[in-house]
């Protein structure tokens, strides 16, 4: 593993992204608006009384953590990889003496470094303005770290695999939009997964989307018992394995299918 090369790769993307930070902060703002909307919706609902174990402060803390987590795990390769395939830059990546995935990972990390200060600032301001009681404990923070790591890997790999479908069709946008919708509904953004009714709740517990966002937030805000936490870890790991297998399949088949665009 060449650490210095990796660092240079990140630095290059970082400087590129920093130049247009106004643009990226606009994006960051766009990502947090749906969570903000439901923060206020549920806080208003809880103002009328307790909702299944959540009071007003509970909802506020849940959604503020959700905003930060969404920021940390948001896979920018959703659109950069699709674009690079469509415009032919992908061929250059293939010729480099390293797997194109490193290029994608570097962009991903750089984007996070550029956008996180803005997201942190907004979250902190909301925290001061709404001043909820904080439920964090040492144990919840310790359990949170592996949950965050697995969530990050899962969401990144899933997005990368979906974006690689552009190798066949050169437009995977429709699938990515569907993926975003499912994340919105089932990952805990429209409502914490515990509040989803009937079959929607069951779907959310089984499908991988909660493992990407809702689960780490629930761990951090201390909403789960130790058994539930370990069950969550097991589910996350199972989905990571499944997505790795899917990725390998898509990658090998896709490369065979890929006909370069541009020069």
């Amino acid at each position, binding site marked *: 593993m060449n650490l210095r090369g990796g660092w240079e790769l990140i630095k290059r993307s970082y400087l590129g992204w920093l130049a*247009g930070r*106004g*643009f990226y902060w*606009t*994006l960051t*703002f*766009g990502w947090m*608006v*749906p969570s*903000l*909307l*439901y923060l*206020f*919706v549920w806080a*208003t*609902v809880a103002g*009328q009384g307790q*909702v*299944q174990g959540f009071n007003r402060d509970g909802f506020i803390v849940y959604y503020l953590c959700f905003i930060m987590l969404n920021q940390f795990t948001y896979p920018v390769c959703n659109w950069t990889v699709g674009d690079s395939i469509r415009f032919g830059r992908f061929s250059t990546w293939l010729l480099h003496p390293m797997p194109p995935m490193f290029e994608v990972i570097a962009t991903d990390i750089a984007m996070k470094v550029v956008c996180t200060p803005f997201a942190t600032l907004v979250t902190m301001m909301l925290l001061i*303005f*709404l001043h909820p009681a904080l439920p964090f404990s040492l144990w919840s923070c310790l359990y949170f770290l592996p949950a965050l790591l697995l969530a990050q890997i899962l969401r990144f790999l899933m997005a990368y695999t979906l974006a690689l479908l552009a190798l066949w069709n050169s*437009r995977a*946008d*429709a699938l990515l*939009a*569907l993926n975003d*919708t499912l994340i*919105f*509904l089932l990952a805990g953004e*429209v*409502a914490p997964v515990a*509040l*989803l*009714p009937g079959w*929607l709740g069951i779907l959310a517990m089984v499908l991988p989307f909660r493992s990407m966002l809702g689960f780490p937030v629930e761990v951090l805000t201390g909403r789960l018992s130790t058994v539930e936490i370990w069950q969550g870890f097991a589910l996350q790991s199972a989905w990571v394995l499944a997505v790795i297998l899917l990725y390998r399949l898509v990658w090998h088949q896709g490369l065979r299918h890929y006909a370069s665009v541009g020069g």
Partner: protein
Amino acid sequence: MLYYLRLIGLFLRASIQEEMAFRLNFVVNILGTILSLTTGILGIAILFHVVTTIQGWTFPETLTLLAIYQLITALQNLVIEPSMNSLGGIDGDAWTGRFDYTLQAPVSTQFLVSFRKWRLWSFIDVSLSLILLCIALTLVGKHIGLLQLALFVFNLCVSLLIVYTIFLLLSSASLWQQGIPLTWIFNSVMQLGRYPVGIYPGALRLLLTWVVPVAFITTIPVEVLTRQASPLVLVAGAAIALGLLALASFCFRMSLRHYTSASS
């Protein structure tokens, strides 16, 4: 006047020809609308699974609000947004320097940047949101008279006028500072109009009523339909729209004077 109408006809024809070249966009567009409607409806359904009213709004009323929000965004996507984006958006005319040609055209520049580009697939979005509106109003179950309908259409026009002036203001700003897609910020803020503005805490509510008047854009047309909106609010809405229009036109002219081409 007739001349301007004929020009709009020409712009429409050019836009149709352009869009026919990318027919797949039609499918992608429909999919996007259906996903947006589904998430909106499911979001409200999940919410009202837990409570019966939110700030005095019932399920059918909130659904009406969603339909109006979708209707206004669809109408905005029909001509206001594509036209303005081709000026101030990413790779827009202000960015590439093509704006010089617009300035040289022998018609009003503001007219040209406002009506130049049409996205016709939005007609489908408009009809889908009208269907949702009819369903929601049936659920509300209140008789709607002719007068109320006329008031509603009047308010819809006021809302669109407000949206138009905001876009014109943002486009003027994009002549000063390029590279930030300001209209995206507005669209994000506009999303907060999917729910009644009463749910937001004090400062944010004031911001959404008086600075970015999302409240006037979405909430008031719903109130006209489902409850009795006070005449004072209707007059205030129209006054705000006209005031904003004057302000935006003035700012646009100032920005034109400031504009110093991007190309050589």
